[in-house]
């Protein structure tokens, strides 16, 4: 080898004498020995300079000296091209495919989980008619009475053990707070109480016509959300299946918003009405379950009216007739409760009241 020969060469000192005459790029290079520098002096300065520059960006595969001599002996100086520069298209394609491969399933899952695509959160229109008897959030904040009955009277009727054992609101609940909370939730979900009530009523109409099915006690029904004009729920995949369990009771529930009796102390409807049949009474039930996520709500004929008129979903930990709007959205869409709660920035801590009449579990 030349270098070895030089290392052992008696002329070494002679080369040293010439160090002062090395190319500037070699003089200040600390990575090379004097002998190596002397050898590189046989190549033109420009080539050596380029070879050194190349070595700074491209690590040598063997030794630095071998790389430099190889570089200088090439017919034209080899220009450094990074892996990026060398395989630009290939890399772009690989990265793009990787992104697609990783991100698409994640995105797809999140999309499925997210209620955005079905409950149009981003299309919530604050000017939409929310309910028939309380038209807007503004009306709700100024509420003093409903159906001509003072809120305090309705609130008393709604307490557990008053007009219903389970009550329509919790022991300590304030009716206006209950309304505000559920109005905000439904507003965040991007729909209206009217639309929710219309869907519930349509599902109710199908379920109530079913005969008791011995073969299929769960009474599986199919419902098309697009059957309601202007539907904004499940628009992408509007046909859903539900388990339904409809029943009629041999009693009746008086309407807490009944305006015939305005004195809460009196419960004598006889004085108000010519006949029982003139009154608004309730007493039919529908258990609605989404087989996809097993979420369930207990719907009554009363609550459909209350939702549509007032956006009232009832409340109370023991009140199994109350409906959590998030759970309702979960039943409607098949999405998990927590996914919907998360999407509208609400906590995922709601527990459904224990329903003694639920038969499908």
């Amino acid at each position, binding site marked *: 080898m030349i270098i070895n020969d030089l290392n052992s060469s008696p002329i070494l000192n002679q080369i040293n004498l010439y160090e002062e005459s090395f190319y500037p790029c070699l003089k200040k290079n600390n990575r090379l020995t004097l002998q190596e520098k002397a050898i590189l002096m046989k190549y033109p300065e420009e080539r050596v300079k380029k070879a050194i520059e190349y070595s700074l960006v491209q690590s040598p595969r063997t030794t630095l000296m071998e790389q430099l001599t190889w570089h200088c002996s090439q017919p034209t100086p080899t220009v450094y091209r990074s892996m990026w520069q060398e395989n630009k298209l290939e890399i772009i394609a690989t990265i793009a495919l990787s992104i697609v491969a990783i991100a698409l399933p994640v995105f797809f899952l999140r999309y499925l989980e997210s209620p955005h695509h079905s409950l149009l959160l981003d299309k919530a229109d604050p000017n939409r008619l929310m309910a028939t008897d309380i038209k807007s959030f503004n009306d709700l904040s100024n509420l003093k009475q409903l159906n001509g009955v003072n809120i305090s009277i309705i609130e008393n009727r709604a307490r557990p053990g008053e007009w219903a054992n389970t009550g329509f609101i919790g022991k300590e609940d304030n009716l206006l707070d209950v309304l505000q909370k559920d109005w905000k939730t439904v507003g965040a979900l991007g729909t209206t109480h009217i639309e929710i009530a219309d869907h519930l009523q349509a599902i109710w109409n199908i379920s109530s016509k079913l005969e008791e099915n011995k073969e299929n006690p769960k009474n599986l029904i199919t419902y098309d959300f697009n059957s309601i004009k202007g539907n904004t729920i499940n628009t992408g995949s509007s046909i859903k299946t539900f388990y339904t369990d409809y029943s*009629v*009771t*041999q*009693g*009746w529930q008086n309407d807490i918003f009944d305006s015939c009796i305005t004195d809460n102390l009196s419960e004598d409807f*006889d004085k108000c009405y010519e*006949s*029982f049949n003139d009154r608004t009474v309730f007493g039919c039930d529908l258990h609605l379950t989404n087989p996809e996520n097993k979420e369930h709500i207990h719907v009554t004929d009363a609550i459909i009216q209350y939702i549509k008129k007032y956006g009232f979903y009832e409340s109370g930990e023991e009140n199994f007739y109350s409906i959590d709007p998030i759970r309702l959205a979960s039943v409607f869409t098949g999405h998990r409760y927590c996914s919907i709660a998360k999407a509208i920035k609400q906590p995922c801590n709601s527990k459904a009241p224990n329903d*003694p009449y639920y038969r499908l579990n």
Partner: protein
Amino acid sequence: MDPNGKITLYGSKTGESVAGNSRDNIAQKIATDSKIQVIAPIDHVSPSGIQLSDSANFEIYQKNNSGDKLFKSFQPVFDKCTNIANPLHPREKEAIEVVKKEITENSQIIHPDDLETYLLEMCHDNPKEKFLYLSMESDWNGALKPEHKKKVIEKISSHYDLKFKVVKSYNEICKEIEQAAKIGEIVHLVIDGHGSIGSIDISGKDQMHLNPLSYNYKDYSCFKNLSPSTKITLLTCSTGKPNAHGNVNDNLANLIAKKTGKVVISPIDLIKATEIKIESIDDFYVFHTDKKNGNLFKKFNPERVDDNK
């Protein structure tokens, strides 16, 4: 013989129609004379082909080559009966259809049209115990439709001499009790309607009310026509419900028990029409459970109110 028993004839063609008359045969004659139901074949039977379909009730069957059941049920014919109100209330018609369907599915009754008589009349010459089933006219949600209680009504109709009647007022209730009592001792009275802790709705306008100040408060004096042992069952929501203070005797069931001197069976909470089942047909006891209370039907004893638990 027990009026609820039945006679089974194995002889071929003992139930055969003669000249198209399905009543002119030995099976019908035995049923009519004995006042007992008769099961008999309408054609040839093969002794080795007779099979038992229900050993508890001794139901036998054999099918012919066309797959038709050969053994039919021949009902007794009674002639000392009350008259059927005419025109029939739609719910009475529905009750007949429901029972007809139910019986035909099980027993292949030979004259299903006779059910109108069996279901809507009581007969002096029917040895079965008398059962008065009064359905209140007011039914705002369809819960009183016989379809919802078809098993209950069918069982009662096959075990008792049943009169099923839709009533429009308290006076009609009294009239039905009075008429039925003339036929025989009423062992059971059912009041099927919509109820609450303090009321039963009869017609929308007419009610039975717990509150003595209400003009719908009744004295139940006509219930004295029932026998001392008559049991009254209220198929009405919550009429036996404890009041807001937990008092189990402050309700309409207890009032009726006290006023009539009869044992009253009533639910203590909400009941659903389709969930009512018969626990015992012999002494007619019903049940309806929910996950919270178990059987919702409780007994209200007129003598000792403390027992009403």
